[in-house]
């Protein structure tokens, strides 16, 4: 066909630093079932991460960004862009990126902007950061996915809508912990999930969320990327997929030909829920915490609306040397304080006083 589908920059780019953040509080799905379904309902995850009262997408992004900087070992002033993907930006107008950039000391010689594409806003920023560095315009660019997602009380989404985030510094391949081999993006107009302005909670087309949305975009993006690179699932040590619940990424992996072993290290949803723009990017942090030099990693995001970004990465010799410069994702998962539905309602400000 001769069509050019792969995305590959002029200059080779890699991840020079990465960082995770997950809030301390956990709400077991059984608590939500107790309140809304008399306990008699199948649970999509075991529990989800809930932010404290003083946390939002900006504070989550700041801690993840500081962890990424610690691993990159560079002066923050060398970063030329701080891009934050989220659907829970604290302000409707005032970029989260400005707050994060200031907090990490990256201002003022930078670009800072917020990205939106449901759960793939962070990987969209990641693609752009590859291009920004790959073109030679910048040596370092930061891409973040962070959310404090909310579901309407009693809605199916309430069981999984969670908080967390991950930050990545893209830079020259020579200094990288993992090199980006190539990427690919696949997008169509699909109304599986949406939220109108000034509405607090999203709408989702129940029948629409599986086959035509999640699976079509994830599978096409992953298959296209692997085909164009001449790889099969056997070439990968790890695969990470967007994880809105436990079943979807497991099914996607199986359909593509990946084994449960290849996805288990990056599959965090059962313990922290769906962190939206943070979801697949957090899964990748957990994989980078354990991967060995030479391991190939597949990352595929999904954002409602809908689209997927797929990335093929290879871990370098630098990874084991620098990953212990910041907390591991597992340490954040283990830092766990369970809350009941009452405290959750208070922490998430769902209570109205009459």
């Amino acid at each position, binding site marked *: 066909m001769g069509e050019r589908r792969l995305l590959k920059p002029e200059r080779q780019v890699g991840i020079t630093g990465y960082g995770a953040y997950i809030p301390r509080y956990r709400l077991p799905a059984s608590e939500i079932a107790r309140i809304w379904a008399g306990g008699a309902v199948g649970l999509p995850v075991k529990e989800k991460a809930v932010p404290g009262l003083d946390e939002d997408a900006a504070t989550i992004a700041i801690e993840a960004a500081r962890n990424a900087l610690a691993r990159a070992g560079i002066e923050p002033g060398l970063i030329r862009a701080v891009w934050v993907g989220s659907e829970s930006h604290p302000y409707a107008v005032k970029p989260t990126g400005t707050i994060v950039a200031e907090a990490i000391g990256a201002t003022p010689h930078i670009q800072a902007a917020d990205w939106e594409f449901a759960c793939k806003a962070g990987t969209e920023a990641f693609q752009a950061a590859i291009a920004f560095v790959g073109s030679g315009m910048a040596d370092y660019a930061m891409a973040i996915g962070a959310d404090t997602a909310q579901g309407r009380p009693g809605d199916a989404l309430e069981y999984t809508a969670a908080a967390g985030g991950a930050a990545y510094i893209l830079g020259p391949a020579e200094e990288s912990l993992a090199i980006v081999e190539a990427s690919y993006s696949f997008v169509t107009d699909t109304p599986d999930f949406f939220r109108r302005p000034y509405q607090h909670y999203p709408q989702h087309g129940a029948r629409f969320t599986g086959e035509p949305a999640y699976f079509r975009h994830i599978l096409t993006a992953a298959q296209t990327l692997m085909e164009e690179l001449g790889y099969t699932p056997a070439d990968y040590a790890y695969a990470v997929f967007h994880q809105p619940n436990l079943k979807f990424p497991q099914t996607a992996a199986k359909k593509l030909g990946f084994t449960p072993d290849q996805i288990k290290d990056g599959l965090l949803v059962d313990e922290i829920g769906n962190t939206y723009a943070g979801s697949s990017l957090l899964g990748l942090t957990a994989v980078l915490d354990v991967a060995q030099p030479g391991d190939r990693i597949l990352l595929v995001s999904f954002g409602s609306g809908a689209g997927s970004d797929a990335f093929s990465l290879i871990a370098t010799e630098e990874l084991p040397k620098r990953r212990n410069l910041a907390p591991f994702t597992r340490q954040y998962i283990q830092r766990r*304080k369970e809350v009941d539905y009452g405290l959750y309602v208070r922490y998430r400000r769902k209570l109205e006083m009459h």
Partner: protein
Amino acid sequence: MELPKNWRLRKQRYSMVGEICEKCGARIFPPRDVCPECSKPAATPYTFSGKGTVYSYATVFQAPKGFEEYVPYTVAMVKLEEGPMVAAQLTDVDHDEVKIGMPVEMVTRKLYEEGEEGLIVYGYKFRPRIHKSN
């Protein structure tokens, strides 16, 4: 009304940027442009590590206006590794878990919101240290 003040203090509040005295090496926080040790002018910015220990603390059950929803919360005097003592709120910890000498680290969190329509003010707080390897 608080906008200009919050804006001026942002580096100090977001990331604990203080000063270092070029004469005697003292690390200064909050920045005051004069070294408290040797009284010489000091204006060189210095970013603190954010690591310290709890020197003393008190838990607030009846909060001042604007902080009501956070009760109970604990305010501590934190002795920074670089020397200075700083007063700040603790976070991600239950008030009955706080102990004198507890190792803590700085995080940037929401301090307060100026109502539903106003500014969100971010700044440093301290929480029990997560990372043990450094």
